[in-house]
């Protein structure tokens, strides 16, 4: 019974018979060239079926008029892109998506880093540290539905947050957090920040635990204070993790849909409309699948531009 190695090496028990190997449909050299492709074939087929095919289909839909809904949809070139680019709500969604994403990434990083430093310090009692570790990671364990329900209840005009604020005389009226055009986007971003920081915390904590203690000792001997140690040792050591995770977070947050949909649905008016809700409404409310596909391709391009930096950064490492 011949093995893959035999095919590759053309040998069996030390006897090399190149002529017998050339029998059959393919020559030895062709077989040798084909083997790597056979190894990647299952992954390539799966990728093509599950990723490439849907992406190409969406791209094709975005260039057609009335895709899915019309039996004889025709090619219209970039007309759908022109239509969505001329819609002011689309540009409002782009701006709000960027605000939501950038603020989320910044505060995820700041809160995650602060909690990671807190959990890494030796000045806290180990038992308390273990309790805090569980508490801080809790938001990560909840699904988007649960997070949406929690924040809808907390930020309800008759909810806990308003009760506390009124009791402390910070406000003297019931703030309609998700129901006011002035506060809805900020409230939504806040809920997303709360839901997402544990990923940073866990990753940065692992990074902090991997920094050699000798570096801090050497810096101490050289007279560096805690701020200088943080600035010149901790941050540079964590930088590869920070960049990787921030780029991934940027891509993920830009596509967030369930939290936005279940809290505000893109409203009031269009004050929390993000690209994902804008696209969803085009597809499943207006049945404009071609316009929705064009909008989805815009999200894809934005995500891929960030992915480019991520891959470049990974290669540089």
């Amino acid at each position: 019974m011949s093995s893959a190695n035999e095919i590759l090496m053309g040998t069996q028990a030390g006897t090399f018979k190149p002529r017998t190997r050339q029998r059959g449909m393919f020559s030895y050299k062709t077989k040798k060239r084909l083997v790597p492709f056979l190894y990647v074939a299952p992954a390539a087929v799966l990728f093509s079926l599950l990723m490439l095919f849907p992406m190409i289909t969406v791209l094709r839909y975005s260039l057609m008029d009335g895709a899915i809904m019309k039996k004889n949809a025709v090619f219209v070139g970039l007309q759908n892109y022109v239509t969505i680019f001329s819609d002011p709500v689309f540009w409002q969604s782009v701006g709000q998506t960027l605000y939501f994403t950038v603020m989320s990434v910044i505060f995820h990083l700041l809160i995650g880093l602060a909690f990671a430093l807190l959990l890494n310090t030796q000045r806290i009692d180990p038992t308390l540290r273990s309790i805090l570790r569980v508490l801080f990671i809790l938001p990560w364990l909840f699904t988007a539905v649960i997070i949406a329900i929690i924040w809808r209840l907390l930020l309800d005009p008759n909810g806990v947050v308003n009760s506390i604020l009124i009791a402390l005389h910070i406000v003297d009226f019931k703030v309609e957090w998700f129901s006011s055009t002035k506060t809805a986007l900020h409230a939504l971003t806040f809920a997303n920040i709360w839901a997402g920081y544990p990923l940073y915390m866990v990753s940065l904590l692992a990074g902090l635990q991997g920094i050699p203690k000798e570096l801090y000792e050497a810096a101490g001997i050289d007279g560096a204070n805690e701020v200088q140690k943080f600035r010149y040792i901790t941050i540079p050591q964590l930088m590869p993790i920070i960049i990787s995770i921030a780029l991934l977070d940027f891509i993920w947050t830009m596509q967030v849909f369930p939290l936005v949909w279940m809290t505000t649905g893109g409203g009031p008016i269009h004050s929390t409309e993000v690209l994902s809700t804008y696209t969803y409404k085009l597809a499943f409310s207006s049945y404009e699948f071609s316009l929705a596909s064009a909008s989805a391709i815009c999200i894809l391009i934005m995500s891929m531009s960030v992915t480019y930096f991520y891959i470049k950064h990974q290669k540089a490492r």
Partner: protein
Amino acid sequence: MNVRKYLATMKAAAAVWALCATCAFAETNIEFIQWWEPEMPAGALRGIMDDFEAANPGIKVTLVSGPYSATHDQIVVGAASGTLSDVVGLDGAWVNGLAKQGAIASMDSLMADAKYDPSQIADIVKVNGQSVMFPLASFVYPVFVNLDLAKAAGIDKMPATRTEFADAAKKMTNPDKNEYGWVLPLALQNPGGIQNDVMSWVWASGASMLKDGKPDLENEAVVGTLEYIKSLQDAGVISPGIFAKKEQDKVEEFVNGRVGMMIDSLAHINLIRERNAKLNFGISALPAVDGYTGKRGLPYASWGIGISDSSEHKAEAWKLVEYLMSPDVNGRLVSIANAFPGNVKAKPDFSKSDPLFEEAFKIFQSGHLANEFVGLPVAEDLMRDMNVEVQKMFDGQQTAKDAAANTQKQWLVEFAK
């Protein structure tokens, strides 16, 4: 076993197999997609299907059931790919799109072939003159009133006019105790609030938002209704958080005794009883404009039924539709679902239901079903467009007149497509 016996056994087995296969091939299997089975008591719909199969030997029905939104998605995908089930459960808001897509069949020829009397159907939904949907069961939306709150506020009769409603809402409102007269859900996720809680005021007074099948939102009745609702907000009688409130929030606030009145589906009576058995509440028809004496329009949602255009078994599918719409079966089905019948001759049995259903049936019989969104193109999108404009009005960005005019512009674009 000798060879002869073996061969005889094999022949007998082959004969039995062939007989079974012939039976199987003779049987027609039709699919019926709907979201009703999970909303009815376990086995209820299947039981009706079993009776249909017994009455129609040779036809088997496979129920494809799921929650409302998942069923909607499945129907949209099935319509696009030509794999829609033979019989389709429909919501009035989907009908126009599906009919224009050519996904649901006209039932006119099927009715003619079967010599079916269409006058027994309460409200046949037509698109471009073709009958595409029958409302099998209707869920009417009356006003629910918290009788304890009303009594405490000194209100001794159900509000019948807009003035009485506004007056009652004011009396029931007490922000210090988190109690408000009315609740209005205008969240954008499901813009049904526009249909059930806003435009229902127009239909209740016998007015319309359409003229010759086209949008007519700038008429006095629609603008007047928007102004009236805005006046309720200005008076502070609507529970806060309107723009983020969904239908389930509305029901929840009523159940918890935080609002005095809400417009809601009769289907929620049992739910309200389960959630708060002590809640003392009643129902009445939606108030009309002062001085109106005509028949009240009753907003409703319905379980509609239609036939897939791609079905290879349209005759069998029609038999199922006809069976479900027959007076006896229709009456039985709506009695289980706590709804009102789609067949005018059906007599539902509410003896085992909540006493309020009996009362609601009287309201139903004295008024007429009114939901002008049924059969409109991209109905959900139209509601969402209007929802945004009404939100702008509530937010002080525009007047009621502007909200109506801006919605009119957007609707005309949709109707022109």
